[in-house]
């Protein structure tokens, strides 16, 4: 059947639909001119980069958090960038890498999951969502060679298993599940060091949030690409809880309270 404005397509994936029918809108270099020799030798393009994001499992699910800084070389490109996205009612993702393609991937992934759910009449499984994201990361591989890395950290609440799950990826689309916690981005290693010391199984919600914010604070302390809390402008990291009740944003007042306490403790050590 031919429809004047609706191309014939036979698949439940929005990403595949876009790649086939509207290649200019999709991830990766589909439909873009290949990099010419002078372009390639010019080195990576200067674009805003986003940094440290992390996820920690706790008794009710997963907390996912990220700082708010984007840098472009030695300049701060954005102080309030959002790196943690609600994807659907049961999952969220955080991103590190070139900000533009990262945000595009998050938006495309949101549409992908909603599209599938509407066409098929039921949502993808947690595992299915994680795999689909891996394919999208893989599709972006050509862009990696031009310096535009997109690295997601995906967390979902698995309704059938009744537990939160964390997935990390590599640039080839490889998908690995983490059992306790993970952090990615330029300050990821610093954040992981903090989490390694303080992580315990079955943390309470308050303790998990505290650990997430402490890890981000320590990452910001050691990594120039990661922003700490901006007390003057009132900019705090973003954090979300992913639980059986869905996705909950942590309000700024709660983040501020945790940071006030943390900084009072640190200040007392300096005197």
């Amino acid at each position, binding site marked *: *059947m031919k429809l004047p*404005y609706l191309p014939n397509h036979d698949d439940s994936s929005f990403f595949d639909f876009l790649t086939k029918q509207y290649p200019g809108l999709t991830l990766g270099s589909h439909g873009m001119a290949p990099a010419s020799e002078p372009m390639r030798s010019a080195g990576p393009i200067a674009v805003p980069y986003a940094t440290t994001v992390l996820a920690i499992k706790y008794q009710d699910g997963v907390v996912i958090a990220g700082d708010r800084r984007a840098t472009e070389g030695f300049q701060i490109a954005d102080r309030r960038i959002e790196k943690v996205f609600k994807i659907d009612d049961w999952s969220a993702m955080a991103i590190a890498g070139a900000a533009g393609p990262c945000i595009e991937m998050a938006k495309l992934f949101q549409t992908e999951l909603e*599209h599938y759910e509407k066409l098929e009449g039921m949502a993808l499984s947690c595992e299915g969502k994680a795999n689909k994201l891996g394919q999208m990361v893989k599709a972006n591989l050509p862009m990696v060679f031009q310096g535009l890395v997109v690295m997601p950290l995906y967390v979902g609440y698995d309704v059938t298993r009744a537990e939160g799950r964390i997935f990390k990826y590599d640039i080839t689309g490889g998908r690995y599940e983490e059992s306790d916690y993970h952090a990615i981005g330029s300050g990821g290693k610093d954040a992981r060091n903090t989490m390694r010391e303080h992580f315990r199984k079955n943390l309470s919600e308050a303790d998990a949030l505290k650990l997430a914010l402490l890890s981000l604070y320590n990452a910001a302390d050691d990594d120039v690409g990661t922003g700490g809390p901006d007390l003057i402008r009132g900019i705090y990291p973003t954090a979300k809880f992913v639980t059986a009740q869905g996705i909950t944003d942590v309000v700024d007042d709660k983040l501020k309270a945790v940071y006030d306490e943390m900084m009072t403790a640190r200040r007392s050590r300096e005197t």
Partner: protein
Amino acid sequence: MAMPSYYVSPEQMMQDKAEYAKKGIAKGRSIIAMEYIDGILLTADNPSASLHKVSEIYDNIAFAGAGKYSEFENLRKAGIRHADLKGFMYSREDVTGRSLANGYSQSLGTVFSQEMKPLEVEILVVQASTNGHPNEIYRISFDGSIIDEKNFAVIGGRAEAVQTILKDKSPGQAPSLDAALKLCVTALEQTANQKLQPEGLEVAVLDRTRTGRKFRRISVSDIRRILSP
């Protein structure tokens, strides 16, 4: 010049096609879309729990199809692709029921005039009001004709009979959800000449009071609770 003996006049051909399509659509059961206080209610006489006649297209847009399942299912999928593409390319608020209904109208019209077999479907595209815009209900027929309905619309089965009953009983202003569902089920039962069980109904709403996606299916237990006297 002598015409070949198998010549059929265009009028005759269109009439035959229309009759063929109408017959196919009337074989099925009816679906009602009705405005209620918080949005739009969709009620379908549908014994299957998994083959849906009513479904979500976008944030505040829903779709209902009567007639041949495979044909309106294709239209439904095309609509979702169109809406998701538009929302992705521009923004969520730029996806409108009107543009979707226009697209459907063109598609159905083209198929009706150019293909051997017309589509045996009648569809509804409904959009719940947001930001002060009124509700929109579009009824699109097999030949692509599009009608902008008010208060309620009926497609499939004995649509005209259901419409007459609803016209008589329809209250002046938008009813509550419970009252609207009771009214719809009464009208369906009267034309079907049998009692409809909650399991045999497919009911969904576009509920303006929800945030984000407004489409919600109403479970069998909730239907039973609402219909219990």
